[in-house]
Protein backbone atom coordinates (compact mmCIF):
# COMPACT_ATOMS: atom_id res chain seq x y z
CA UNK A 1 0.00 0.00 0.00
CA UNK A 2 1.33 3.45 -0.88
CA UNK A 3 2.32 6.01 1.76
CA UNK A 4 -0.49 8.30 0.51
CA UNK A 5 -3.16 5.65 0.98
CA UNK A 6 -1.85 4.88 4.47
CA UNK A 7 -2.01 8.60 5.36
CA UNK A 8 -5.64 8.87 4.26
CA UNK A 9 -6.56 5.67 6.08
CA UNK A 10 -4.78 6.87 9.24
CA UNK A 11 -6.59 10.21 9.09
CA UNK A 12 -10.01 8.62 8.76
CA UNK A 13 -9.06 6.06 11.39
CA UNK A 14 -8.60 8.91 13.86
CA UNK A 15 -11.92 10.40 12.71
CA UNK A 16 -13.64 7.06 13.34
CA UNK A 17 -11.99 6.85 16.76
CA UNK A 18 -13.16 10.37 17.73
CA UNK A 19 -16.68 9.69 16.42
CA UNK A 20 -16.92 6.36 18.22
CA UNK A 21 -15.64 7.86 21.49
CA UNK A 22 -18.15 10.70 21.27
CA UNK A 23 -20.98 8.24 20.59
CA UNK A 24 -19.92 5.90 23.41
CA UNK A 25 -19.83 8.82 25.88
CA UNK A 26 -23.14 10.15 24.46
CA UNK A 27 -21.66 13.60 24.00
CA UNK A 28 -24.00 14.32 21.10
CA UNK A 29 -20.97 15.35 19.04
CA UNK A 30 -20.49 12.27 16.84
CA UNK A 31 -22.53 13.60 13.93
CA UNK A 32 -20.75 17.00 13.99
CA UNK A 33 -17.33 15.33 14.25
CA UNK A 34 -17.95 12.97 11.34
CA UNK A 35 -19.47 15.66 9.12
CA UNK A 36 -16.60 18.07 9.88
CA UNK A 37 -13.99 15.37 9.16
CA UNK A 38 -15.56 14.23 5.90
CA UNK A 39 -16.08 17.81 4.82
CA UNK A 40 -12.42 18.61 5.56
CA UNK A 41 -11.39 15.58 3.51
CA UNK A 42 -13.48 16.65 0.53
CA UNK A 43 -12.37 20.29 0.75
CA UNK A 44 -8.69 19.37 0.98
CA UNK A 45 -9.01 16.96 -1.94
CA UNK A 46 -10.63 19.68 -4.06
CA UNK A 47 -8.08 22.28 -2.98
CA UNK A 48 -5.23 19.86 -3.67
CA UNK A 49 -6.54 19.24 -7.17
CA UNK A 50 -7.06 22.95 -7.79
CA UNK A 51 -3.59 23.87 -6.58
CA UNK A 52 -2.11 21.15 -8.79
CA UNK A 53 -3.92 22.82 -11.67
CA UNK A 54 -2.61 26.23 -10.59
CA UNK A 55 0.93 24.85 -10.53
CA UNK A 56 0.46 23.72 -14.13
CA UNK A 57 -1.13 27.01 -15.25
CA UNK A 58 0.58 29.83 -13.27
CA UNK A 59 -1.86 32.50 -14.52
CA UNK A 60 -4.55 30.79 -12.46
CA UNK A 61 -2.67 31.84 -9.30
CA UNK A 62 -4.30 35.25 -9.43
CA UNK A 63 -7.78 33.77 -9.69
CA UNK A 64 -7.00 31.39 -6.85
CA UNK A 65 -5.78 34.18 -4.57
CA UNK A 66 -8.80 36.32 -5.52
CA UNK A 67 -11.09 33.43 -4.59
CA UNK A 68 -9.36 33.10 -1.23
CA UNK A 69 -9.83 36.81 -0.57
CA UNK A 70 -13.49 36.56 -1.58
CA UNK A 71 -14.10 33.58 0.69
CA UNK A 72 -12.33 35.33 3.57
CA UNK A 73 -14.35 38.53 2.99
CA UNK A 74 -17.64 36.59 2.97
CA UNK A 75 -16.68 34.81 6.20
CA UNK A 76 -15.43 37.92 8.01
CA UNK A 77 -18.17 40.16 6.59
CA UNK A 78 -20.79 37.73 7.89
CA UNK A 79 -19.42 38.24 11.39
CA UNK A 80 -19.65 42.03 10.98
CA UNK A 81 -23.01 42.13 9.25
CA UNK A 82 -24.51 44.93 11.36
CA UNK A 83 -22.08 47.14 9.42
CA UNK A 84 -23.37 48.43 6.06
CA UNK A 85 -21.25 46.98 3.24
CA UNK A 86 -19.53 44.64 5.70
CA UNK A 87 -18.20 42.22 3.08
CA UNK A 88 -16.78 44.98 0.91
CA UNK A 89 -15.05 46.59 3.88
CA UNK A 90 -13.75 43.21 5.11
CA UNK A 91 -12.40 42.48 1.62
CA UNK A 92 -10.41 45.72 1.65
CA UNK A 93 -9.03 45.10 5.16
CA UNK A 94 -8.03 41.53 4.30
CA UNK A 95 -6.76 41.97 0.74
CA UNK A 96 -4.75 45.17 1.02
CA UNK A 97 -2.15 44.06 3.59
CA UNK A 98 -2.00 40.37 2.68
CA UNK A 99 -1.62 40.84 -1.07
CA UNK A 100 0.85 43.68 -0.55
CA UNK A 101 2.96 41.60 1.86
CA UNK A 102 2.92 38.61 -0.49
CA UNK A 103 4.06 40.83 -3.34
CA UNK A 104 6.84 42.27 -1.19
CA UNK A 105 8.10 38.84 -0.10
CA UNK A 106 8.19 37.69 -3.72
CA UNK A 107 9.71 40.96 -4.96
CA UNK A 108 12.63 40.87 -2.52
CA UNK A 109 13.23 37.21 -3.27
CA UNK A 110 12.33 35.83 0.16
CA UNK A 111 10.28 33.23 -1.68
CA UNK A 112 10.48 32.13 -5.30
CA UNK A 113 8.02 33.96 -7.55
CA UNK A 114 6.26 30.75 -8.46
CA UNK A 115 2.73 29.53 -7.78
CA UNK A 116 4.19 26.86 -5.47
CA UNK A 117 5.52 29.60 -3.14
CA UNK A 118 3.12 32.47 -3.82
CA UNK A 119 -0.20 30.69 -3.34
CA UNK A 120 0.49 29.14 0.08
CA UNK A 121 2.14 32.36 1.30
CA UNK A 122 -0.86 34.42 0.21
CA UNK A 123 -3.15 31.84 1.79
CA UNK A 124 -1.47 32.04 5.19
CA UNK A 125 -1.44 35.85 5.16
CA UNK A 126 -5.06 36.08 3.97
CA UNK A 127 -6.12 33.68 6.71
CA UNK A 128 -4.32 35.73 9.34
CA UNK A 129 -5.75 38.99 8.02
CA UNK A 130 -9.23 37.46 8.08
CA UNK A 131 -8.89 36.43 11.73
CA UNK A 132 -7.61 39.87 12.75
CA UNK A 133 -10.33 41.63 10.72
CA UNK A 134 -13.07 39.58 12.34
CA UNK A 135 -11.75 39.88 15.90
CA UNK A 136 -10.90 43.58 15.77
CA UNK A 137 -14.03 44.47 13.79
CA UNK A 138 -16.39 42.68 16.15
CA UNK A 139 -14.67 44.14 19.20
CA UNK A 140 -14.93 47.64 17.75
CA UNK A 141 -18.62 47.24 16.86
CA UNK A 142 -19.26 45.93 20.38
CA UNK A 143 -17.33 48.87 21.81
CA UNK A 144 -19.16 51.47 19.74
CA UNK A 145 -22.43 50.05 21.06
CA UNK A 146 -21.51 49.15 24.64
CA UNK A 147 -19.30 52.19 25.30
CA UNK A 148 -21.59 54.69 23.55
CA UNK A 149 -21.96 56.65 26.79
CA UNK A 150 -18.20 57.03 27.24
CA UNK A 151 -17.77 58.07 23.60
CA UNK A 152 -20.61 60.60 23.86
CA UNK A 153 -18.99 62.00 26.99
CA UNK A 154 -15.72 62.55 25.12
CA UNK A 155 -17.58 64.19 22.22
CA UNK A 156 -19.52 66.39 24.64
CA UNK A 157 -16.20 67.49 26.20
CA UNK A 158 -15.01 68.73 22.81
CA UNK A 159 -13.23 65.73 21.26
CA UNK A 160 -13.56 65.06 17.55
CA UNK A 161 -14.83 61.62 16.55
CA UNK A 162 -11.36 60.22 15.85
CA UNK A 163 -10.12 61.17 19.33
CA UNK A 164 -13.34 60.11 21.06
CA UNK A 165 -13.31 56.59 19.61
CA UNK A 166 -9.54 56.02 19.82
CA UNK A 167 -9.62 54.18 23.19
CA UNK A 168 -12.25 51.81 21.76
CA UNK A 169 -10.23 51.36 18.55
CA UNK A 170 -7.09 50.64 20.56
CA UNK A 171 -8.87 47.94 22.57
CA UNK A 172 -10.25 46.42 19.35
CA UNK A 173 -6.86 46.31 17.63
CA UNK A 174 -5.32 44.74 20.73
CA UNK A 175 -8.04 42.07 20.74
CA UNK A 176 -7.34 41.34 17.08
CA UNK A 177 -3.61 40.92 17.63
CA UNK A 178 -3.45 39.05 20.94
CA UNK A 179 -3.77 35.49 19.51
CA UNK A 180 -0.95 36.05 17.02
CA UNK A 181 1.29 37.82 19.53
CA UNK A 182 0.84 34.89 21.91
CA UNK A 183 1.53 32.43 19.10
CA UNK A 184 4.66 34.33 18.06
CA UNK A 185 5.96 34.49 21.63
CA UNK A 186 5.41 30.81 22.27
CA UNK A 187 6.48 29.48 18.88
CA UNK A 188 8.51 26.31 19.30
CA UNK A 189 7.85 26.22 23.05
CA UNK A 190 4.14 25.39 23.28
CA UNK A 191 3.53 24.08 19.76
CA UNK A 192 5.29 23.72 16.45
CA UNK A 193 3.49 25.92 13.93
CA UNK A 194 1.96 24.58 10.74
CA UNK A 195 4.45 25.92 8.23
CA UNK A 196 7.39 24.45 10.15
CA UNK A 197 5.74 21.06 10.58
CA UNK A 198 4.61 20.96 6.94
CA UNK A 199 8.05 21.78 5.58
CA UNK A 200 9.84 19.27 7.81
CA UNK A 201 7.35 16.54 6.94
CA UNK A 202 7.78 17.51 3.28
CA UNK A 203 11.52 16.87 3.52
CA UNK A 204 12.96 20.34 4.15
CA UNK A 205 15.77 20.75 6.65
CA UNK A 206 14.78 22.01 10.12
CA UNK A 207 16.87 25.16 9.51
CA UNK A 208 15.01 25.94 6.27
CA UNK A 209 11.70 25.21 7.95
CA UNK A 210 12.53 27.48 10.91
CA UNK A 211 13.66 30.30 8.61
CA UNK A 212 10.51 30.07 6.50
CA UNK A 213 8.32 29.94 9.59
CA UNK A 214 10.01 33.05 10.96
CA UNK A 215 9.32 34.98 7.76
CA UNK A 216 5.69 33.91 7.79
CA UNK A 217 5.14 34.71 11.47
CA UNK A 218 6.73 38.14 11.35
CA UNK A 219 4.98 39.02 8.10
CA UNK A 220 1.74 37.94 9.76
CA UNK A 221 2.35 40.36 12.62
CA UNK A 222 2.50 43.30 10.22
CA UNK A 223 -0.34 42.03 8.03
CA UNK A 224 -2.71 41.38 10.94
CA UNK A 225 -1.94 44.73 12.55
CA UNK A 226 -2.63 46.50 9.27
CA UNK A 227 -5.82 44.48 8.69
CA UNK A 228 -7.08 45.34 12.19
CA UNK A 229 -6.26 49.04 11.74
CA UNK A 230 -7.88 49.16 8.29
CA UNK A 231 -11.11 47.48 9.35
CA UNK A 232 -11.33 49.77 12.39
CA UNK A 233 -10.78 52.81 10.19
CA UNK A 234 -13.49 51.64 7.78
CA UNK A 235 -15.94 50.97 10.61
CA UNK A 236 -15.34 54.39 12.19
CA UNK A 237 -15.79 56.01 8.79
CA UNK A 238 -19.11 54.18 8.33
CA UNK A 239 -20.30 55.11 11.82
CA UNK A 240 -19.31 58.75 11.51
CA UNK A 241 -22.05 61.31 10.90
CA UNK A 242 -21.64 64.94 9.81
CA UNK A 243 -20.90 67.35 12.64
CA UNK A 244 -18.45 65.15 14.60
CA UNK A 245 -21.19 62.74 15.60
CA UNK A 246 -21.67 58.99 15.43
CA UNK A 247 -24.63 57.06 14.07
CA UNK A 248 -26.21 54.59 16.49
CA UNK A 249 -24.43 51.24 16.16
CA UNK A 250 -26.74 48.26 16.74
CA UNK A 251 -25.70 45.44 19.05
CA UNK A 252 -24.05 42.53 17.28
CA UNK A 253 -25.31 39.04 17.96
Amino acid sequence: MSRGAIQVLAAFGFLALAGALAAWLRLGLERAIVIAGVRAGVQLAVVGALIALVFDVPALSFAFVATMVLAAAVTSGGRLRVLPGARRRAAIAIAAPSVLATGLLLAVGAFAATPRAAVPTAGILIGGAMAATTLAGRRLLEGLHDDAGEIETRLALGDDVRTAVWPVVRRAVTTGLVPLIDQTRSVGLVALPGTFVGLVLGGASPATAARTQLVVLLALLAVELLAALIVCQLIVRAARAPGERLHDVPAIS
Partner: protein
Amino acid sequence: MEVERADAAAEIVARDLWLARGEGRAVLRGASVDVPRGQVTALLAPSGAGKSTLLRCLNRLLEPDRGTVLLDGVDIRELDPCALRRRVGLVAQEPAMLPGDVAANVGYALDALPAERLEAALAAAGLDASFTTRRADALSGGERARVAIARAIARDPELLLLDEPTAALDGDAADVVAATLVRLARDGLGICLATHDLALAERISDRSVRLQTKEASR
Protein backbone atom coordinates in the same frame (compact mmCIF):
# COMPACT_ATOMS: atom_id res chain seq x y z
CA MET B 1 -38.51 78.10 7.20
CA GLU B 2 -39.21 81.18 9.29
CA VAL B 3 -36.97 81.30 12.32
CA GLU B 4 -37.22 83.88 15.07
CA ARG B 5 -34.08 85.87 15.56
CA ALA B 6 -32.44 85.53 18.94
CA ASP B 7 -32.78 88.60 21.10
CA ALA B 8 -29.75 90.12 22.78
CA ALA B 9 -30.15 88.08 25.96
CA ALA B 10 -30.85 84.75 24.30
CA GLU B 11 -27.79 82.57 23.86
CA ILE B 12 -29.55 79.53 22.41
CA VAL B 13 -32.74 79.68 20.42
CA ALA B 14 -34.08 76.37 19.20
CA ARG B 15 -37.11 76.46 16.95
CA ASP B 16 -39.46 73.79 15.67
CA LEU B 17 -37.18 70.80 16.11
CA TRP B 18 -38.37 67.49 14.71
CA LEU B 19 -36.46 64.27 15.16
CA ALA B 20 -37.38 60.66 14.58
CA ARG B 21 -35.11 57.97 16.00
CA GLY B 22 -35.23 54.20 15.74
CA GLU B 23 -37.84 52.81 13.35
CA GLY B 24 -39.07 56.30 12.53
CA ARG B 25 -40.45 56.97 16.03
CA ALA B 26 -40.89 60.74 16.39
CA VAL B 27 -39.13 61.85 19.58
CA LEU B 28 -39.27 65.58 18.95
CA ARG B 29 -42.31 67.06 17.26
CA GLY B 30 -41.79 70.74 16.75
CA ALA B 31 -39.94 71.40 20.02
CA SER B 32 -38.75 74.94 20.79
CA VAL B 33 -36.77 76.40 23.67
CA ASP B 34 -34.72 79.52 24.48
CA VAL B 35 -31.78 79.39 26.90
CA PRO B 36 -30.88 82.98 27.89
CA ARG B 37 -27.60 84.03 29.41
CA GLY B 38 -27.45 84.50 33.17
CA GLN B 39 -30.58 82.51 33.96
CA VAL B 40 -31.61 79.00 34.95
CA THR B 41 -34.15 77.76 32.45
CA ALA B 42 -36.06 74.68 33.56
CA LEU B 43 -37.11 72.41 30.71
CA LEU B 44 -40.11 70.57 32.04
CA ALA B 45 -41.62 67.43 30.61
CA PRO B 46 -42.47 63.94 31.80
CA SER B 47 -40.00 61.11 31.34
CA GLY B 48 -39.72 59.95 27.75
CA ALA B 49 -40.99 63.23 26.30
CA GLY B 50 -37.69 63.96 24.57
CA LYS B 51 -35.87 66.21 27.06
CA SER B 52 -32.57 64.34 26.70
CA THR B 53 -32.93 64.32 22.93
CA LEU B 54 -33.63 68.04 22.85
CA LEU B 55 -30.57 68.82 25.01
CA ARG B 56 -28.38 66.82 22.62
CA CYS B 57 -29.74 68.81 19.70
CA LEU B 58 -28.59 72.01 21.41
CA ASN B 59 -24.90 71.02 21.25
CA ARG B 60 -25.27 68.99 18.04
CA LEU B 61 -24.67 65.56 19.52
CA LEU B 62 -27.90 64.87 17.65
CA GLU B 63 -29.01 66.50 14.45
CA PRO B 64 -32.73 67.28 14.12
CA ASP B 65 -34.49 66.23 10.92
CA ARG B 66 -36.08 69.69 10.78
CA GLY B 67 -35.74 72.94 12.67
CA THR B 68 -32.94 75.29 13.61
CA VAL B 69 -30.72 75.89 16.62
CA LEU B 70 -29.06 79.30 16.87
CA LEU B 71 -26.20 80.19 19.21
CA ASP B 72 -25.83 83.96 19.51
CA GLY B 73 -27.87 84.20 16.33
CA VAL B 74 -25.64 81.84 14.35
CA ASP B 75 -26.92 78.49 13.11
CA ILE B 76 -24.89 75.90 15.06
CA ARG B 77 -24.37 73.90 11.85
CA GLU B 78 -22.09 76.73 10.74
CA LEU B 79 -19.90 76.37 13.84
CA ASP B 80 -17.07 73.94 14.46
CA PRO B 81 -18.80 71.12 16.41
CA CYS B 82 -15.93 70.59 18.85
CA ALA B 83 -15.69 74.31 19.64
CA LEU B 84 -19.49 74.44 19.99
CA ARG B 85 -19.45 71.64 22.58
CA ARG B 86 -16.72 73.36 24.56
CA ARG B 87 -18.95 76.45 24.67
CA VAL B 88 -22.14 74.50 25.41
CA GLY B 89 -21.42 71.88 28.09
CA LEU B 90 -23.63 68.85 28.68
CA VAL B 91 -24.06 66.78 31.81
CA ALA B 92 -25.92 63.59 30.93
CA GLN B 93 -28.44 61.95 33.22
CA GLU B 94 -26.18 58.93 33.76
CA PRO B 95 -22.78 60.44 33.02
CA ALA B 96 -20.00 58.09 31.97
CA MET B 97 -16.75 58.24 33.88
CA LEU B 98 -13.57 58.14 31.83
CA PRO B 99 -10.65 55.89 32.87
CA GLY B 100 -8.45 57.15 35.68
CA ASP B 101 -9.10 59.18 38.78
CA VAL B 102 -11.39 62.13 39.40
CA ALA B 103 -8.64 64.64 38.58
CA ALA B 104 -8.12 62.97 35.19
CA ASN B 105 -11.85 63.18 34.52
CA VAL B 106 -12.25 66.81 35.49
CA GLY B 107 -9.10 67.81 33.61
CA TYR B 108 -9.85 65.66 30.55
CA ALA B 109 -8.68 67.29 27.30
CA LEU B 110 -7.63 70.44 29.12
CA ASP B 111 -4.02 71.46 28.52
CA ALA B 112 -3.47 72.14 32.18
CA LEU B 113 -5.85 72.39 35.08
CA PRO B 114 -4.28 74.11 38.11
CA ALA B 115 -5.01 72.45 41.44
CA GLU B 116 -6.99 75.44 42.67
CA ARG B 117 -9.28 75.35 39.63
CA LEU B 118 -9.73 71.60 40.00
CA GLU B 119 -10.65 71.96 43.66
CA ALA B 120 -12.92 74.92 42.94
CA ALA B 121 -14.79 72.90 40.30
CA LEU B 122 -15.15 69.98 42.72
CA ALA B 123 -16.32 72.28 45.51
CA ALA B 124 -18.90 73.85 43.22
CA ALA B 125 -20.28 70.36 42.66
CA GLY B 126 -20.25 69.59 46.38
CA LEU B 127 -17.10 67.46 46.48
CA ASP B 128 -14.04 68.10 48.65
CA ALA B 129 -10.41 67.94 47.50
CA SER B 130 -9.97 64.39 48.80
CA PHE B 131 -11.88 63.20 45.75
CA THR B 132 -9.15 64.19 43.30
CA THR B 133 -7.28 60.88 43.64
CA ARG B 134 -10.35 58.63 43.89
CA ARG B 135 -10.82 56.17 41.05
CA ALA B 136 -13.73 57.46 38.96
CA ASP B 137 -15.12 54.00 38.20
CA ALA B 138 -15.43 53.26 41.92
CA LEU B 139 -17.69 56.24 42.68
CA SER B 140 -21.36 56.00 43.60
CA GLY B 141 -24.04 57.26 41.24
CA GLY B 142 -24.41 60.52 43.13
CA GLU B 143 -20.65 61.09 43.21
CA ARG B 144 -20.43 60.41 39.48
CA ALA B 145 -23.14 62.98 38.83
CA ARG B 146 -21.22 65.59 40.82
CA VAL B 147 -17.89 64.75 39.12
CA ALA B 148 -19.66 65.18 35.77
CA ILE B 149 -20.90 68.61 36.85
CA ALA B 150 -17.39 69.55 38.03
CA ARG B 151 -15.98 68.28 34.72
CA ALA B 152 -18.37 70.50 32.79
CA ILE B 153 -17.76 73.56 34.98
CA ALA B 154 -13.96 73.17 34.82
CA ARG B 155 -13.91 74.07 31.13
CA ASP B 156 -15.71 77.37 31.64
CA PRO B 157 -18.62 76.85 29.27
CA GLU B 158 -20.87 79.71 28.20
CA LEU B 159 -23.94 77.55 28.55
CA LEU B 160 -24.53 74.41 30.54
CA LEU B 161 -27.13 71.77 29.70
CA LEU B 162 -28.01 69.43 32.55
CA ASP B 163 -30.18 66.34 32.26
CA GLU B 164 -31.85 65.52 35.58
CA PRO B 165 -28.67 66.57 37.46
CA THR B 166 -30.01 65.89 40.95
CA ALA B 167 -31.80 62.62 40.21
CA ALA B 168 -29.01 60.49 41.74
CA LEU B 169 -28.25 62.85 44.65
CA ASP B 170 -29.41 62.81 48.25
CA GLY B 171 -30.98 65.92 49.77
CA ASP B 172 -27.81 67.66 50.96
CA ALA B 173 -25.86 67.00 47.76
CA ALA B 174 -28.81 68.11 45.67
CA ASP B 175 -28.95 71.36 47.67
CA VAL B 176 -25.24 72.01 47.04
CA VAL B 177 -25.61 71.42 43.33
CA ALA B 178 -28.77 73.53 43.14
CA ALA B 179 -27.02 76.41 44.93
CA THR B 180 -24.06 76.07 42.57
CA LEU B 181 -26.31 76.29 39.52
CA VAL B 182 -27.98 79.43 40.86
CA ARG B 183 -24.59 81.00 41.58
CA LEU B 184 -23.21 80.09 38.14
CA ALA B 185 -26.26 81.67 36.53
CA ARG B 186 -25.74 84.84 38.59
CA ASP B 187 -22.16 84.88 37.27
CA GLY B 188 -23.54 84.97 33.73
CA LEU B 189 -23.71 81.30 32.72
CA GLY B 190 -26.81 80.23 30.81
CA ILE B 191 -28.20 77.04 32.30
CA CYS B 192 -30.79 74.70 30.87
CA LEU B 193 -32.03 72.23 33.43
CA ALA B 194 -34.08 69.35 32.02
CA THR B 195 -36.08 67.85 34.83
CA HIS B 196 -39.39 66.34 35.80
CA ASP B 197 -38.82 67.58 39.39
CA LEU B 198 -41.26 70.49 39.61
CA ALA B 199 -40.16 71.40 43.14
CA LEU B 200 -36.52 71.77 42.07
CA ALA B 201 -37.54 73.76 39.01
CA GLU B 202 -39.67 76.14 41.07
CA ARG B 203 -36.89 76.55 43.64
CA ILE B 204 -33.95 77.45 41.40
CA SER B 205 -35.17 78.35 37.95
CA ASP B 206 -35.74 81.86 36.69
CA ARG B 207 -38.05 80.62 33.99
CA SER B 208 -39.70 77.39 32.98
CA VAL B 209 -40.36 75.99 29.56
CA ARG B 210 -42.66 73.07 28.99
CA LEU B 211 -41.38 70.96 26.15
CA GLN B 212 -43.47 72.41 23.33
CA THR B 213 -44.70 69.90 20.86
CA LYS B 214 -47.07 70.03 17.97
CA GLU B 215 -49.44 67.30 16.93
CA ALA B 216 -47.55 64.76 14.87
CA SER B 217 -48.19 65.27 11.22
CA ARG B 218 -46.48 62.07 10.09
